[in-house]
């Protein structure tokens, strides 16, 4: 199988998948329930999500393992089942993806902050190592470290994936617009700082996910491109900022609205485009249409 990077070097623009978390909720995941346990207990529903993005035309799909680290699973008393749960996550996505399409093993933040002293970098590394190995074992050919806000945690996750698996390693951070109209992560990291600090640790693709919607991602990609013109850039954008409507939260951006920014995002220098919270297979289908027309 050709690696993601090889396809990008050959000049292709690729499409990734849309939301998992918000999609699982639609399928009945209730607040307080462990989303990753669904890989075992609701196998068919999770497989349906994975398939829906493949059917929408995505070149790659993620896995239902965002909170699959031991630090997250221990909230549910599941920290001893890290391997089983993450392996199952990757197996489901691999089953939907077949052998042609890519499976990105999702690795999210632990919720622990090194500088407060409640976790050491070594402990983070061990947790990410355990998770990454299980994801590769289940069939992931890439690891996507995502929604990061702290450089130290991102670094440990990238290193752990790089040093312990043969997967391509992707890292995306979450940036929000500041009052000065530039973008920073919750921990104060700018997109250009991310590039400087993460590339040395062996990451092959970088980018941004979640955040304030796809329009803001254009500025983020431009900032990344100012300091690095060659590293492949992946964007997983939210369907806008959630609004509260009729007792539920809704993401307002329609597939058409999202697709309307795809060309600008490509012009800014993005190589892989997909969705995050609130995006659906319809969003991805629209993105695929635009990308194929380029």
């Amino acid at each position, binding site marked *: 199988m050709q690696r993601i990077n090889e396809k990008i070097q050959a000049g292709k623009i690729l499409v990734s998948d849309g939301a998992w978390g918000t999609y699982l909720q639609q399928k009945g995941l209730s607040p307080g329930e462990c989303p990753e346990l669904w890989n075992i207990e609701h196998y068919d529903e999770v497989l349906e999500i994975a398939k829906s993005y493949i059917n929408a035309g995505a070149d790659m799909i993620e896995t239902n393992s965002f909170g699959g680290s031991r630090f997250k699973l221990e909230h549910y008393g599941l920290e001893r089942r890290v391997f089983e749960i993450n392996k199952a996550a990757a197996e489901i996505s691999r089953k939907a993806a077949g052998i042609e399409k890519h499976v990105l093993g999702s690795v999210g933040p632990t919720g622990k902050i090194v500088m407060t002293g409640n976790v050491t970098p070594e402990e983070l590394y061990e947790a990410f190592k355990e998770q990454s190995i299980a994801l590769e074992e289940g069939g992931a050919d890439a690891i996507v470290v995502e929604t990061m806000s702290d450089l130290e945690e991102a670094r440990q996750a990238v290193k752990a994936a790089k040093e312990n698996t043969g997967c391509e390693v992707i890292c995306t951070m979450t940036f929000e617009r500041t009052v000065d109209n530039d973008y920073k992560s919750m921990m*104060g990291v700018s997109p250009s700082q991310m590039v400087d600090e993460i590339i040395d640790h062996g990451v092959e693709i970088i980018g941004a996910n979640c955040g304030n919607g796809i329009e803001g991602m254009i500025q983020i990609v431009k900032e990344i491109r100012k300091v690095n013109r060659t590293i492949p850039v992946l964007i997983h954008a939210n369907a806008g900022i959630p609004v509260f409507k009729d007792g*539920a939260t809704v993401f307002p951006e329609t597939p058409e609205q999202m697709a309307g920014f795809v060309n600008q995002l490509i012009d800014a220098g993005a190589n892989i485009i997909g969705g995050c919270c609130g995006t659906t297979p319809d969003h991805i289908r629209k993105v695929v249409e635009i990308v194929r027309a380029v």
Partner: protein
Amino acid sequence: MEGLLEKIAYCVEFGKINKNAPYPPDMKDQDGADELTKQAIDQGINADEILKKGLVTGMEKVGIKFRENKVFVPQVLMSAKAMSTAMEHLKPFFQSGDVKRKGTFIIGTVAGDLHDIGKNLVAMMIEGNGWEVIDLGTDVKSEKFIETLRSYTGSYIGLSALLTTTMVNMEKIVKDIKSEKPDIKILIGGAPVNEEFREKIGADFYSPDPQGAVEYLNKLIA
């Protein structure tokens, strides 16, 4: 004397915990909030003055800078650590009644939500402003808030949520608390929450940043 309190405020603002603390690098080997607060007490400075002119002033400054995106979570965490280290020296004065807290604030992340970074930031800011803070942790249900309210009558409540799915639980908790104690003021916050949402669920105050919550609470007791 003035100089010492200003120094304490400076240490809190910039997160200088004690002499050995490596952060911030430009204050290496200088006394931190820890040593300076002890010196202030030894010199006989009134504990209430130390709290107000030292700790509270420093926390207020960092709170405002955080709101203006001049500093981010790491700096606030360091400031909070400097503040709480200094606060340890003031504890006996709280216990003896020489220094009084402004009131009690009960805070928790709502049921179904396990995220605590935002909730902790708010708790630290409010504590650093001279309030007693009862932190109920994460995944807190209505009953727990109501039960705690019984032990701390006259207190205020803060609800936090990070997820768009759990912010919906805020509505139930607000209703439950209000039906038990209609006059309790409830503050809400968290990434997906906004003013429009606050109005819909009948909470009393929303702030996009911790400092806003501090200012609102202070207004309530003014």
